Every structure is written in C-alpha cells, then in structure tokens.
C-alpha cells in the first residue's frame, strides 16, 4: 500500500488491524484508538480518499490502497488549513480526537468547499470529542473552509463581540 505518498510493503499477520499496522509497524502514532468499536472516530484515516475507521479494518484489506494519515496532511512542514483552523480556533484540548476530527474535516471540505454549519455537523458526526463541546470545532472547520477558498476566515465568536 501507499501511506502518505510513500510506498510501503511489509509482511503482516493477516489479523493485524490497519490502525495497529500504522501505529506499531510504521510508528505513525498520530492515528489514535479510542473505542475499538467504530464509534469514536479517533482512528479515522483516508483509504483511497474516503474517511474510514482504521480500527475495523485489517491491514491486508488496504493492500494496494492509498492510505493517508494525520502525518500526511501537512505539506512541507506547513500546517494544512484544517490544522491551522483547529489551532487558531481552539478546536482542541486534550487533542486525542483531533487527528480523526481533522481527517473527517479534510474529507468533508474536499467534497464541499462551502459547507453550512449544519453540513459541517453532519460531516463530522462520526467523531466524538469529550473536551470541547464541539463549538470551536465547527469554527475551526469554517476557518479552514474560508482559507481553502482563498478568503479571509470569519472572525472567531470571541473576537470583536462582547
């Protein structure tokens, strides 16, 4: 398979989950495991451009596929606009859900460059966050959407208001 643009080949136990292959064989530990049941979304990666939960997939199922993890999102060391949005808009606290949130958000914005707030919420409904209450995550995605369209991001709701 190709991981973050690099061809990767390894002999793995067929039982190895994709997330464990990424974390333990490739040491790409940015993809997290939160529940092992496909609910929390912390393990979200892209397989051939589509976000999937890597804890419910064997590594061998991704044989020949193009896999992108959080480590492959920034380019040349520059933060991706979605990463920038999460930082600028305080869209993270403990940060454990953040890689999965970013992967879902990037996938959403690749299909819809001008999502409404409701579309953002539906786009990342498969990712749980226990820290933030989600409000700043919505703002982070709005920030990124504007940035990716080449526009000035909307002001944060704590800026210029009361």
């Amino acid at each position, binding site marked *: 398979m190709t991981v973050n643009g690099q061809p990767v080949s390894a002999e793995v136990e067929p*039982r190895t989950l994709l997330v464990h292959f990424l*974390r333990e064989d490739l*040491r*790409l*530990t*940015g*993809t*997290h*495991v*939160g*529940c*092992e*049941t496909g*609910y*929390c979304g*912390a393990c979200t990666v892209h397989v051939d451009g589509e976000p999937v939960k890597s804890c419910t997939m064997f590594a061998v199922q991704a044989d020949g596929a193009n896999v992108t*993890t*959080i*480590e492959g*999102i*920034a380019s040349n060391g520059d*933060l991706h606009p979605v*990463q920038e949005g*999460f*930082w*600028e808009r*305080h869209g*993270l*606290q*403990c*940060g*454990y*859900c*953040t*890689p999965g949130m*970013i992967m879902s958000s990037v996938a959403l914005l690749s299909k819809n460059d001008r999502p409404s*707030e*409701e579309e953002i*919420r*539906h786009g*990342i*409904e498969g*990712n*749980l*966050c*226990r*820290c*933030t*209450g*989600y*409000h*700043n*995550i*919505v703002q982070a995605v709005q920030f990124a959407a504007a940035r990716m369209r080449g526009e000035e991001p909307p002001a*944060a709701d*704590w800026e210029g208001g*009361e």
Partner: protein
Amino acid sequence: MTTPTRTRPTVTSGIGDSPLRPDGVPKLKGEFQYAQDLWSEGMLWGATTRSPHARARIVSIDIGPALATGGVHAVLTADDVPGPGMFGLEHPDQPVLASDEINYWGEPVAIVAAEDPDTARRAAAAVVVEYEALPPLTDPEEADRADSVFRRLQIRSGDQEVTGEVVVEGYYEVGTQDQAPLGTEAGLAVPDGSGGVDLYATSQFVHADQSQVVEALGLRPEQVRSHPTGVGGAFGAREDVNLHIHLVMLALHTGQPVKMVYQRSESFTGHVHRHPARMWYRHHATRDGKLVRVEAKILLDGGAYASTTSAVLANACYFAVGPYRVDSVLVEGIGVKTNNPPCGAMRGFGAVQSNFGYESQMDRLAAELGMDPLELRRRNALATGDRNPTTQQVIQTPLPVAECIDSLAAIPLPDGDDPILPGGSGLTTDRSHIVRGVGYSVGIKNLGFSEGSDDYAEARVRLTDEGAVVETAAIEVGQGLVTVLAQMARTALGISKAIVRHVDTSRIGSAGSTSASRQTQISGGAVMEASRRLRERILAHHGGDELDDLGVHRAGELIAPMSELIREGWEETYTFRHPPTTPPDDDGHGDIHADFAIAAHRAVVDVDPELGLVRVVRVDTAQDVGRVLNPVSVQGQIEGGIMQGVGLAVMEELVIQDGVIRNPNFTDYLLPTILDAPDVEMLLIEQGSWWGPFGAKGVGEPPTISSTAAVAAAIRNAIGRDLNRVPVRPEDIAL
C-alpha cells in the same frame, strides 16, 4: 472586591491574552506523544485477568496454561506482590491483585507480560481461576442499613425545631456517569537496571501514583520515578491508580520495559465513576419565599473500595443547600460500600449530585409559592460575608451569586427554531410535535482541597536560553495548563518568552492533583510567586529597576543583558499553599473550604413529549471566574463542561445490574455527538478571588455542576411533569 495583581501590559501573551496552545502543533500533526504512543526497544505488553463476578471467593488460581502460552514472559498473582499490596488515594484498602475475595466485577486477579498485546490478552484469558460466586451487595440502602459505609457525615446548623409556612419534599436520583476520556488508560514502565523503575502512565497526579506504587510494593521512594506523560482527557478518571502498580510489578519481574493499554471495555472497569446518588429533601420557606430550613439525606454508592468517596460525600453534603442563605440545616450523608464498581472523582465531585437535588427543590418550591424560579433564587442568594449555611464558614472570597443570576437572565432567549430536531438523523419528529421548555440551575463548589488537607504545589522557574522555563509536575490533561502557567510566568517576570516543562517526581515536589479546579490557582500561585521572587532577586542583585526580554535596566539603561542573566543561572523554586482549612467538628462546621465558585445555567430544550426525545437547544451561563487569565481557554472549559452536564442530563449512564456493567462500550455508553451539542452563550463575572493568583478562580468544574439540573428543569418546564432522575430517559417522559 479584590484588586488583581498589577499586570505588565508590555508583555505579549501574558495574562488576559489567548496565546495559541504551545502543544497545538504536535497535537495537530499527530506527533504529540500520548501514553498510548510510548515505545521502548524490546518492550513487553501487559494484560490483566479480571473477575467475571461482582462478589466471589477465589478457590484456586492456575497460571499454568497462561504461562505455557508461547511468548509469555510473566504471569503474576497476589502471591507475587511484594510489600503490603494495598493501595488507595485516601485509604489503602484496595488490593493490587485480589487474593481470596472478589469485591467488584472486573477486579484484577492476575497480570501478564507477553511479547505482543494479542498474546498478552490471550494469556490473561488463559489464567484459570476457580471462583465460588457469592451474592453481591448492590443496593445502597441495604448497605446503609447493614452499616457497610465508608463515611457518615452529619451537618446541623441553627434551630432544629423550626418549620416553614410552606414545605416541599422530594426524592431524587442521579445515575452513574463515566468520565469516558477519549484516550484510555495506558502506560510504560522501564526498569533502570538497579532495582528501580521509570513509570510513564496516564495520570492526574504523578506524586500520588508514585507514593502508592512505593507503598503497595514495599519499595524505597527513590526506586520509582513517575513521569508526566501525554494524557487524552481525564475528568477525574485518572486520579486513582489503576495499571500503574501492575506495570511496575511486571517491569521489575521481567527486567524489561512493559507497556499496557486498556481497551475501552476494560477502561470502563479500570477506573472509578461518578457516584450514583439517592437524595431525600425537605425545604421549608416563608410565604414570601425566604428559606427557613433545609433537610437532606444524601446516599452515595461508593462501590467496592474507598477511592475518594469520603471527600465526594463531604462535597455533596457541604453544598447540599446550594448557594442560598438559610439558618436551619440538617444534612445526613452516607457513602456506602457495596459490590458495585468503585466510584471516585469526576468533574464536579459530589457537588453535581446534590445540585440536582436542591435545584429541583428550588423549582418545586417556586411552583408551590407561585414565584418566578429565578426570583426565588435571587431572594435567597448567598453573598460574600455570609456564612455557608452548612459549614458556618464565613465566606471571604467574592461570591457573585446574585450577579450570576441577573447576568444569566439578561442573556436573550433564542427566538427562532433550532435547525436540529429531537431525534436528529432518525427523522422521528416534526416541528409540530415539539414543545419548548426553559429551566434554570445555580451551583456552588469549593476550589482546591478541603477539610484541613495540606494543599500545595511546587513549581520552579529558571532563566535559560529558551527563555523562562517553568518546571512542574502538574499534569496537563487538555485543559490548557501549559498555556496559562507560561502566561503567568511571562507577566510576573516581564519576559515574553516562557515555556512549561513537565518533570518527574524525583526532580520537583508535588503539584497536587489536576482536579478540584485547582491547578490554575495553586500551581499558578507557585509559578506566579516563584516568578515574582526571581524577578526581585535578579533586580536586587544587579541594582536594577526593570526586567524585560533585553535584561535588567536601571533608569532606562540596560545594565545586565539577558545573556548575562542566563549565564548566571537564575532559578527560583516556590511552594504555594492556599489559606489553611480545618476538618469539620461534630456538627460539620469549620473553615472547611479555601475558595468557592458559582455558575448559573439556563437550558432551552425542544422536547417531543410523545416519544420522550429531547434536543438541548441552548445552555447559557453566567460564571464566576475570578479573573479571566486566558479567555479562549475559559470559553473552552465552559463549553466542554456544559456538554458533560448535558450528557448526564439526557443520555450518559452506566447501566449496572447485580454489580455488572451492561454497557461498557461506546456502542451503548452514549457520549453526546456534535449533533447533540447545544449552543452556549456565556457571560464571565470577574470579581477576583481572595487569594488566587492575579485574582483567578478555577473554572473547570462549575460548568458541569448546574448544567445537568438546568436541562432537567427545562424538560420539566416543557412537559409540565415531575422528573426526579437524571439521566432523563425517553420512557421517563413518554410513558
């Protein structure tokens, strides 16, 4: 009102600013190291054998089949535990591994180290334990009658004979909530080759972990160093020891590094939960709505082991009346010991449970009096200089109860439809099916440790070529301590470059626990005072009158450049203590608490009464924050805390039957999703604290305390029916 310490506005990213999180980039790029990500060459993986019974006698344990599994390096049982083998945050009453009796479902019986996690888990399952199952004690009222208790606490204030013209009574229940941080328990223990171990594990309090490991295993303190490491959320779940002692045992036994990561199902048994509560209340008032007497009986189920039950019970009882004036009080608190899963710390720590009780009562009383619920609260609002009606302690800190209520009332209500309907993507509900409701709750909680405990934090500030380096063992769990401690150092020193570095237990004194909303105040107090003293010493040494990024100045002239100061190797270590507290006397009175914080919440809900489904539209709040040191972090704490309160109000509950958790997974323990998140409007009330650094109060817990009761009140308001239990289930509304 207190005046905040003079700020130094020339320093950027000091207090009052919202600098970006210093750990943001590694967290965003997937490079941040959580305990789950730790790696050591040649490490083994640990796993735990746990009891399938809530109560049993262990007849025999056969580790033979587990040990015979290929790739297994160690299988240890109670027989292999050196030292006393007991641990506990307040009382060492819990065995490291069960030896002859099982007291809760999931209690550890054996531990395994193997070459990979799958082998370790299979070997743990291969340990043959013969149990004689015994009937578990799971009814907390039966435990009370049997005097199976961790603590009883009675509080009596004022004339016990007085009665009111209006009396309302109620019975209330709070279900078992779990902290459910997104990262499960994880850690790595690395033997140092000379009988000692370096432990890197999820924690809120590394010094307490270290001392419990040392005491349980009979080691010398210098043999164990506990290192702060990356934590994926905490909320109380990481205050107690769980895998820490097991990891150290396995590492010492095998002589190899050992890593352990709990799966989600194991995490649900591996850490303590929020105490479920049963509460009986009677409120007496005059016709014009003045509280005359409050009687409460509060029963918390502590489960099988003590953990922090006695402190949680104390909180529930000391705040059993809420932030209201009343002369006559009788509170009876019981923290019982059962065979249910052990309970301990979770955000709000006892104050959440009683808030649901007393605020439900305040609404009931308002209805009985025909009075506006906010007006009733305003009329009885506690204020600075009053005595807390339970403890009789004179409140010295600014306590803006009335201000929070008035500010909350001034936030405009939402006027339009919410885009999300009850039932969400299930398409159950049309707009014509919904009824809107509005409810209120006001909460109070202590900040920092109470009842005479010596609550302190040590911090060190050094001048280096990286700027000011703050060294601390205080744990960052996501709340933003790494940001705010650096802000305080910048402001107090006058230097714009400051970073926070976490150091292990051998290199600095305790910072205490990241809990009780305390680190900003207490580790912050240590950082502020260390920085202030360091600055004064540097100025005195050089005879200067100003310190900034360039160095020391005298009368506007640079007399010692920063490079010289760095060469001089300046550092200052300070241990900060909050004003002393006292244990309670026989009536529960005393100067029990160091500081208090208030929050008021207003929830707006759309309810589908026929199906019993709820959409929480908005939760607005006015919160007493002392002084805002980092506006964006405060906002983040408030929104996240409210979300957990909403979760307890409408969906989060561990279903426990006969001591067994029926839903130990994210399939059925429901955390709110982004489609369940309400909008939040907030007003921050800044009146300072009587001792917090720069006037700061802790802000982490108040958002969680009264948001639950506000949502429950809003649902009652929508459907016009009594609801005496949270979480409110669809059947509670619809049937």
